[in-house]
């Protein structure tokens, strides 16, 4: 069974002039639902299309247009909720969030304020072996994405592309349970991992398919615990929200900067103003987003174009039954079933494709050896080429074949690496390659003995030295290996050398 005992990591502490400060971080992660069509229209969600081509009249908010919900998107939100062990609300509703912005054609975003589809859940964020943060999820709701405003194509105008308008997002809202920049990045990494396991979001941060708003505040040691005991937010500092970040590195930099900015204000006797801020990666700073400030009265009300969304328990149960094994369970199983280290199991379960690849290789073989080959040789080689596992030229069957040849003693580890490179670059059946290219290890004792004899005969001086210093046996082994082109079984060579030298 899944072992979920762990210790909490220490919060990040910053020493100020007036004493220590701790960080308190909550996150709103916007994950694009991996759907073909948009949330309320039949236009495509494909990335990188010509401007305004993935746009229907509904997305462009033409007069008289009406929304009809994409059921697949609802299902993905439920699936995500189940993956985060969250409460699924059988009745939820859509509200309009009203504000004016050129990339928001309707003048409102359809979202779920009052009744979200998913309630409380959790994410366990591992920070090391036996150390993890339990981050509580407050809610997940479904909403529409906005379009894109481009500000740098013209000195006086902004250009608006509505391709992204109306794409389905899941907004995953955490409680303020994250206590440092590394934890924040680890939280997003873990969430992304789970979403990718579930298949509900592709997690592509570069394309903005996963992005985070980060709420940062600082407090004195002990305040956070007081908040957790009482639920009273007044124990915490005033928070600022850093909008729309799509890089783990920027998230950490922004939090670090923002916490230090707030500490500087507080230590100066000032007050932190609750506001929305933007991270500038070039300067490594956050700055106030004034344009968003005045529009803070969103006038939420239930969308009269849509009825409440009622789903059936049987449907939820069917989705639950179809959930895949999730990362923590898989990792625990890999440790138990294949005897892997915590580290190796973590690496192999980082994404579902790697885990599946490994399992294919390890099936019926030595799990540790398989893990070594997948992590050290295959991942290393793929990284060099900038490929991910889905584009591996070596199939699990081929890698398994190489491992089988090692186990049988047909090839040495060194030859195996050469063989791997051949299979990687040229393809082919490993056993056949070994056969055809004469790479098979020499295990025939007679042949090895002859080679050993030759080396001994050719190096009498070394033989003398070896009698006094048995460590020199290794030199003889090396010479024999060289003479046999690396094909001799090193173990057998070692034995015969020692026997012949009377060591």
């Amino acid at each position, binding site marked *: 069974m899944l072992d979920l005992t762990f210790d909490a990591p220490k919060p990040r502490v910053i020493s100020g002039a007036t004493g220590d400060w701790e960080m308190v971080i909550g996150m709103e992660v916007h994950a694009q639902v991996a759907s073909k069509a948009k949330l309320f229209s039949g236009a495509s969600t494909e990335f990188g299309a010509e401007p305004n081509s993935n746009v229907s009249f509904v997305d462009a908010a033409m007069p008289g247009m009406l929304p009809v919900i994409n059921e697949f998107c609802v299902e993905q939100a439920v699936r995500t909720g189940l993956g985060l062990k969250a409460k699924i609300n059988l009745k939820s509703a859509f509200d309009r969030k009203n504000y004016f912005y050129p990339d928001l054609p309707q003048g409102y975003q359809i979202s779920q304020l009052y009744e979200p589809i998913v309630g409380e859940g959790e994410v366990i964020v591992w920070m090391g072996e036996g150390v993890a943060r339990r981050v509580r999820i407050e809610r997940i709701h479904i909403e529409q994405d906005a379009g894109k405003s481009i500000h740098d194509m013209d000195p006086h105008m*902004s250009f608006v592309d509505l391709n992204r308008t109306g794409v389905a997002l899941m907004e995953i809202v955490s409680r303020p349970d994250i206590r440092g920049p590394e934890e924040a990045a680890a939280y997003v990494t873990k969430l992304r991992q789970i979403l990718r396991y579930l298949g509900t979001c592709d997690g592509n941060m570069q394309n903005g398919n996963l992005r985070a708003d980060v709420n940062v505040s600082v407090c004195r040691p002990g305040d956070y615990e007081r908040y957790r005991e009482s639920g009273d937010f007044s124990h915490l500092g005033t928070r600022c929200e850093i909008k729309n970040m799509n890089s783990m590195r920027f998230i950490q930099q922004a939090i670090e900067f923002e916490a230090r900015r707030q500490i500087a204000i507080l230590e100066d006797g000032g007050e932190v103003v609750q506001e929305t801020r933007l991270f500038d990666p070039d300067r490594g700073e956050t700055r106030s987003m004034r344009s968003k400030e005045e529009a803070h009265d969103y006038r939420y009300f239930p969308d009269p174009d849509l009825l409440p969304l009622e789903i059936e328990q049987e449907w939820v149960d069917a989705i639950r039954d179809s959930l895949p094994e999730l990362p923590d369970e898989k990792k625990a199983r890999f440790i138990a079933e294949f005897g892997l280290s915590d580290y190796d199991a973590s690496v192999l379960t980082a994404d579902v494709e790697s885990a599946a690849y490994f399992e294919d290789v390890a099936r019926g073989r030595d799990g540790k050896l398989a893990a070594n080959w997948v992590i050290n040789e295959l991942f290393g080689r793929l990284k060099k080429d900038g490929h991910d596992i889905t584009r591996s030229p070596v199939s699990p069957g081929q890698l398994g074949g190489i491992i089988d040849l090692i186990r049988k003693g047909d090839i040495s580890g060194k030859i195996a690496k050469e063989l791997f490179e051949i299979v990687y670059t040229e393809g082919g059946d490993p056993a056949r390659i070994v056969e055809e290219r004469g790479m098979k290890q020499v295990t025939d004792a007679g042949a090895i003995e002859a080679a050993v004899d030759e080396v001994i005969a050719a190096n009498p001086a070394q033989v003398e030295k070896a009698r006094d210093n048995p460590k020199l046996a290794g030199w003889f082994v090396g010479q024999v290996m060289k003479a046999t082109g690396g094909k001799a079984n090193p173990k057998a060579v070692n034995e015969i050398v020692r026997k012949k030298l009377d060591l």
Partner: protein
Amino acid sequence: MPIDAKTAAHVARLARIRVEEERLPALAEEFSAILGFIEQLNEVDVEGVEPMVSVSPMRLKRRPDVVTDGSMPEKILANAPDAREGFFAVPKVVE
């Protein structure tokens, strides 16, 4: 509750409708009259009454995840006051 000119100005701003300064007092008066009329609702006992969600008690319609629309940028842009290079153009937005 009577509305003053300042509130009227705030509402106009939220609604993104320019109202000239000198028209604000009259507008505030109109709002006050309408709100006074609306405030009759305070006479109704609504204790325990659920707000109406929809007059049609139906199951929300759903569609399958199929691309059925789009690929018509020229129609999307056909009525635009200012379209350039396939985009809608608006005065520069400062973030």
